[in-house]
């Protein structure tokens, strides 16, 4: 059964009184729960949060469904999001994600068998001057070539968290 850490529970308590309205705590608390659950949210977590926060489950559910950063299914230890919007598309973003999924033998939106990687195509991440780019967990990697991206990711899998 899902349960937040003590630190997480404390965070939820603080967020509930941080803003003018308790409801504003939903977004940051979903973010935290996702982090503690290894990268995604499921129905059980939403019920748990509703109970813990004393906020209707439907209000948490609608936020969960609306925003793209709440993952609806498991992601890899390194969740790789490749921008395929216009400036990146013009500079090889789509070829990049195609190359990566082929190289790591996985489909878009699925996790590699070793649990290390998942890949998705995403919309503009505000790094158009460094196109093509990818976001790996919280970090941006810009001015990529397929080879460079593979190199970065393989290094990460080896335990070098920044991939360089």
């Amino acid at each position, binding site marked *: 059964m899902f349960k937040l850490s003590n630190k997480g529970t404390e965070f939820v308590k603080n967020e509930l009184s941080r803003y003018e309205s308790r*409801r504003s705590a939903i977004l940051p608390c979903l973010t935290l729960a996702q982090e503690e659950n290894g990268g995604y949210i499921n129905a059980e977590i939403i019920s748990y949060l509703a109970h813990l926060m004393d906020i209707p489950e439907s209000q948490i559910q609608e936020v969960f469904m609306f925003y793209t*950063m709440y993952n609806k299914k498991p992601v890899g230890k390194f969740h790789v999001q490749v921008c395929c919007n216009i400036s990146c*598309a013009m500079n090889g973003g789509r*070829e990049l994600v195609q190359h990566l999924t082929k190289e790591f033998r996985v489909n878009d939106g699925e996790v590699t068998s070793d649990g290390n990687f998942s890949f998705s195509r995403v919309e503009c991440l505000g790094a*158009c*001057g460094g196109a093509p780019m990818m976001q790996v967990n919280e970090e941006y990697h810009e001015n990529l070539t397929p080879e460079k991206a593979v190199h970065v990711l393989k290094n990460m899998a080896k335990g070098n968290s920044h991939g360089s």
Partner: protein
Amino acid sequence: MEVKHLTEHYDKDGYATIKGYQKLGGYENLKKALKMKPLDIINEVKASGLRGRGGAGFPTGVKWGFLPNNGEPRYLLCNADEGEPGTYKDRLMMERAPHQLIEGMIISAFAIGSPKSYIYIRGEYFYPKSIVEKALREAYDNGLLGKNILGSGFNHDMDIYSGAGAYICGEETGMISSLEGKKGQPKLKPPFPAIQGYLGKPTIVNNVETLAAVTLVIRDGAAAFRKQGTEKSPGTKLFSLSGNVVKPGNYEVPLGYKLIDLINIEGGGLKPGRKLKAVIPGGSSAKILNKEESEKATLDYECLAQMDTMLGSGAVIVIDDTNCMVDLLGVLMHFYHHESCGQCTPCREGTGWLEKLVNGIKSGQGKLQDIDLIETVARNMCGRTICALSDAAAFPAMSFVLKFRDEFEFFVREGRSKIKGTSYAKMHH
């Protein structure tokens, strides 16, 4: 040529820290402002002609003037939900000069009499957020936020709120919904946020660059601010240059600067052997300019409005002759369909239809009447919805088809792109 007013010290080490910022005159403008009357600050900002740098270009001082005098608490909300495709200037500003933003926000909050402000940062901006968070703590530690700021008697609290991935939250009422902990769906206007915004209270929403620019207005005065730019578009602005240029980047130039100079001088022109085909001058929601128009355009609100497009967020996307316009429109229509919040029928259905129609042509199954249908659907999406996303999807669709119709017709007739060797040709969507 670049004129670095806002970005003057962006390359200096330590400018993101309070010590480095103060060493170069930081927070002197706040001291000056706190000795002024709030109404005088609003009038100075009005006189400067500063216009919103996030996209709509509305005069900032005029917006502030809409606040009612009803004794209700009013909120200041900084829009750092940068998401307009092509735009990446606010990210730079937050990473390099978080105190410039905070100082501009405290001055603005003092001017409008606000006890509380939020910086709404898009969720993906983990790093910029960490820099702003650190700067915010420094500001509190130095008595620049909280109770009785610098002995002035003015109290103000500032906090950060993270988005969680939704383009629509860059729309000011969508952002307010999101800050309230809801789906980021825009609200009907009127009432405008200045009357009824966050939690139904008067709220001013300004872009990062706008709020940072307030420090310049206070430092130099309205008259000096107006020395750059044009009469109706005063000041300098950051432009995010991307696409097919040799040196993409953020460049600060006076408004009224020639678009083609930004591309050729700042951007280093196109790659050898490539020809300019089109430019999207103000983020993906702006109507596209063809080569001839791009060569004539100046980067100010009026010129681009006259050319039936807009300055928008200042995101200049340069497109060379190796790109297929049908392919690029498909990229954009996928985006707007994905980001439509689903409230209004013309947008929810229209964006889906536009994506389907363009994809139909891209797959070689298109008919000639589909090209007309794109135009009809797009026309019917304009001005009929709660927010501007519907129009923002329709503008590229209408302008791509109008100005590059030959490429759409070629694709329908031949079942393939007119442009040889495009990235699309290698793709299997």
